[in-house]
């Protein structure tokens, strides 16, 4: 096997097919960066990926049900490559979410990969959902390499991860909240990099730069 084919077979980005609505937008964004990307719910395809994206739109309850139905929960927990959640996908990395979506009265148990709980965004009277372009302050995680504090990215959400030791980037809408969280190889962004113009493309490129050297 040549060096070329080794690197290309190891460079697959897999978007987990959660059946949710923003799958194609996320795929298109990676394709604009000429990434080798597939959408899949297949055990072996996901496990052998260089990096994995967990997308999500809708409610936490519905999204966790979808993962359960597809037998993906234990697989996701066992992954060792970089795994990035987007929007609800980020929230699913947390321990719990109080976004019931009318399905139950109880908090939704999430993947528990980043020890934080998702709760209501306290907008202090500002319109909800928090919808539109807002500024982020970023830490030194490689996902935000080259991204300046104050950069605008696109948010749409009413729930949030609070500021904690797992915060990788923050934003403010009424209260300060986590614009990104992470622990070890699992991290996620509350905003939509696939819809955040050049800044979003840079963040996705940073993600593509991870998981290439193992």
């Amino acid at each position, binding site marked *: 096997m040549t060096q070329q084919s080794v690197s290309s077979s190891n460079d697959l980005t897999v978007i987990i097919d959660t059946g949710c609505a923003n799958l194609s937008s996320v795929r298109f964004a990676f394709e604009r960066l000429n990434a080798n990307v597939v959408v899949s719910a297949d055990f072996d395809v996901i496990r052998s990926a260089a990096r994995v994206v967990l997308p999500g*739109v*809708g409610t936490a309850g519905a999204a966790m049900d979808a993962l359960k139905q597809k037998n993906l929960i234990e697989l996701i927990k066992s992954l060792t490559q970089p795994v990035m959640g987007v929007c609800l996908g980020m929230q699913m990395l947390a321990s719990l979410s109080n976004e019931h*979506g009318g399905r139950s009265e109880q908090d939704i148990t999430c993947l528990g990969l980043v020890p934080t709980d998702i709760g209501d965004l306290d907008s202090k009277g500002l*319109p*909800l959902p928090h919808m*539109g372009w807002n500024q982020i302050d970023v830490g030194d995680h490689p996902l935000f390499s080259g991204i300046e504090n104050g950069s605008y990215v696109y948010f749409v959400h009413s729930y949030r991860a609070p500021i904690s030791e797992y915060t990788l980037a923050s934003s*403010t809408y009424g209260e300060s909240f986590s614009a990104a969280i992470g622990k070890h190889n699992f991290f996620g962004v509350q905003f939509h990099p696939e*819809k955040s*113009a050049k800044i979003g493309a840079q963040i996705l490129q940073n993600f593509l730069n991870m998981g290439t050297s193992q």
Partner: protein
Amino acid sequence: MLAKRIVPCLDVRDGKVVKGVQFRNHEIVGDIVPLAARYAEEGADELVFYDITASAHDRVIDKSWVSRVAEQIDIPFCVAGGIKTIEQAREKLAFGADKISINSPALTDPSLISRLQDEFGRQCIVIGIDSYYDESTDSYKVKQFTGDEAATKDTQWYTQDWVEEVQKRGCGEIVLNVMNQDGVRGGYDIKQLSLIRAICDVPLIASGGAGTMEHFKDVFELAKVDAALAASVFHKGIIDIGELKQYLHANNIAIRL
């Protein structure tokens, strides 16, 4: 700080972008995807596509262009036009639309709003409202089927009541289009938009009447809307989006440059 959004609206008819004056006499402006890409490049914060023929002629938008837009542009966009069922909505979202906007079908069956919200979450459910000032009763009222002059009709709804109703039923955003102002470029209806802002807890997009950069400044400062939508001033090159955003920024309005 959350930025105020500038939202070019592309009225779509038979796969082309069109623009009429007060919803009539539509002329072709250009092709969908190149116009969308140009606006995104110039700094538009979001795009709205209205298939203005869909509801009136009882057919659903041709969705092939939805996917082509999603492939090429990297800002959010909303698709409107004749969406009456959960499945029709799911299809638009699956093709890459970030939001779907419901107007006439929600007036025919308001329960559609709650059903869409249950399925997809309120963040992608936008309600478009065509409101006009009725001089005879000195009140604001809602019209239906405005995409086709022959099909347009009055409803029993006062605008304020309908704004309350759609929020109760779970919409995530409201586009208030003031018909008396549409396409005549005399400025947004600050009075009406301020009235609606006071009862609107979800993001509010002003639509109808933009003619100058000052109109945008006024609608953000005075009516406190979250976003301002316009069509002809952008399509006809009367206002450049980049210059508009510089102007608003210089006037201390939170803007993404």
